[in-house]
């Protein structure tokens, strides 16, 4: 099962490698990882989506993260009320005649066209995991040429 964890870390040289190294050394899987500075430039914020078969492994992941000297706090969103989002950019095959169809889909879901050329449209979407999944499912009929996504971000509400 996937769990979203956020980690506040010292914004120091090598800290990403400490986190990534911990996951690989202990055989845990990272599904996605997003890192950025916070308002305090000495602190970075990481949102990690981890794959953990059971509660015991999730507990170990959190404890092991906490054990790293550069980790300030670890927050597990699993049992916390929160909002999560990810940003995706999708390049789909596109012809002018499909315009209405594509716009209908985008109106129904969370995307918008940010650039349309003769045969290609670039779509941007921001949504939670399910919204993004539904959008991508619907776009399949156009043919997805390229897809990039940020990984999940989460915040308590």
């Amino acid at each position: 099962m996937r769990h979203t964890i956020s980690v506040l870390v010292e914004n120091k040289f090598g800290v990403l490698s400490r986190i990534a190294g911990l996951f690989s050394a202990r055989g845990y899987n990272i599904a996605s990882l997003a890192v950025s500075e916070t308002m305090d430039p000495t602190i970075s914020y990481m949102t990690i989506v981890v794959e953990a078969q059971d509660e015991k492994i999730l507990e170990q992941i959190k404890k092991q993260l906490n054990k790293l000297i550069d980790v300030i706090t670890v927050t597990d969103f699993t049992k916390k009320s929160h909002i999560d989002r990810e940003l995706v950019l999708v390049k789909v095959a596109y012809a002018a005649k499909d315009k209405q169809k594509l716009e209908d889909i985008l109106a129904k879901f969370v995307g918008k066209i940010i650039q349309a050329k003769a045969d290609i449209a670039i779509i941007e979407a921001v949504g939670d995991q399910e919204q993004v999944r539904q959008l991508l499912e619907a776009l399949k009929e156009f043919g997805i040429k390229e897809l990039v996504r940020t990984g999940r971000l989460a915040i308590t509400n």
Partner: protein
Amino acid sequence: MNGARILLESLKREGVEVIFGYPGGQVLPIFDALYDFDVKFILTRHEQGAAHAADGFSRATGKVGVCLATSGPGATNLVTGIANAYMDSIPMVAITGQVGTHLIGNDAFQEADVTGITRPVTKHNFLVKDVKDLARTIREAFYIASTGRPGPVLVDIPVDIQRAETEFIWPETVQIRSYKPTYFGHPGQIKKAAKLISAAKKPIIYAGGGVITSGAHQVLRELAEKIQAPVTLTFMGLGAFPGDHKLCLGMLGMHGTAYANHATMESDLIIAVGARFDDRVTGRLDDFAPNAKVIHIDIDPSSISKNVAVEIPIVGDAKNILGELLEQIKKLPDTSEWLKTVEGWKKKHPLTYKDGSKFLKPQYILEQLWDITKGDAIICTEVGQSQMWACQWYKYLTPRTFISSGGLGTMGFGFPAAMGAKMGCPDKEVFNIAGDGSIQMNIQELATCVENKIHVKVLIFNNGFLGMVRQWQELFYKKRYSFTPITSPDFVKLAESYGAVGIRVTKKSEVRKAIEKAMKTKNTVFVDFRIEPEENVYPMVPSGQAINKMLDGLA
């Protein structure tokens, strides 16, 4: 003051008495500063020896061990020693030189990404990029190494930082916002633990290296005597409870005593203190102590509920928590029946071996060593059969008298570690129990011992085999002794060629005299005991079995 001098001043402020190390191109400024600096420096013959010596010094004294090496190969040679200290939670600071900051990442001569390489085997590491950060970094390194669950910390210092000048400002305090170990146990949890203990019928105390680190041995003894519970020790815990105490069951696990394993399996309450339920202890996890509830006291929360389900986790320092626990136990459990049962196992399954062959028995040598020293010595070991016999056949009465590579199982650890232990405890007799395989892995340190008059006594159990692997091949690979027969130099002549003393023993009647002679000799001594070639370590729990499914070797 330049960086090199700041480093040494900082080490002095941390109370460092001795540094083990080896010079090289990227630590020249540090060695230049060492030339007339007031700290003892021991030049080893290999950086691995320096790391193990710092580790052995730390295990024997409880202080932070320090080793120093140059960049690249010097630093990579430290890695095994650092990993070894990490697995056994030994406080150590490793200082390495690095190529100049402008060359980092350039594949420069003798460059290696040492902070990268050591990240998974250190508690923390630093690359110092500004000489102004150096003193504070050293302060933090010692603080991190020695607090919480201790461990090795590496500080990588580029050569230009060693040369750079700045004012030396020693930070009086350390504040690391992201690092705050827990020392005091949760009072509610301690109360619950006390209740569980009062209600137990068959409690057992399972104590590990954390008891020694925390200095909790005295209060552990008070607890055991108060609640009349038998005590079993992990490998790392040997010495945490007196080996000759009537409640002591010795070591448990793969080569533990049968009675320790039976008592653990049959117990209804395991009080785990500073131990981590490692696979060599639990055997098959699904079958481990099926009727036992577990109270787990450990300073490292990630050690709790990692392998075994725990009823009452208590995070904190063992000494504090056991002290609180002692006060909270109002009603004593009645363990008289349980102790009788345990006593029965002790009588029925004692440690034993068959004597009477024409060869020396390693167990006999250790019995003699015990009889001569009565526990008043530091026993270091290498890894393998000789190590396991040393766990079984010698009684460790006090903490820090048994020094051995536990988690990593590093052959070649014992000799340099003994050297470090002797530096830390010059008035103690220090032995290294070795095999003919292991001793050859860091044998170059003979020169270091002789040069610095570090009089370590090495007892080599010479059986012509890499014995522990041979034992597994005998038992599980149809005696196909693939690359385990091993030849060795003449250890007597070898010792003599270094200016040490060599003694050869082939007869039982010579064993005691040889040990006594080694102790009297004011020099490093190698005693070459020619032992039974195919002697096995028993009892033995085959890998992946429940720990009460022992082979006793007597059938």
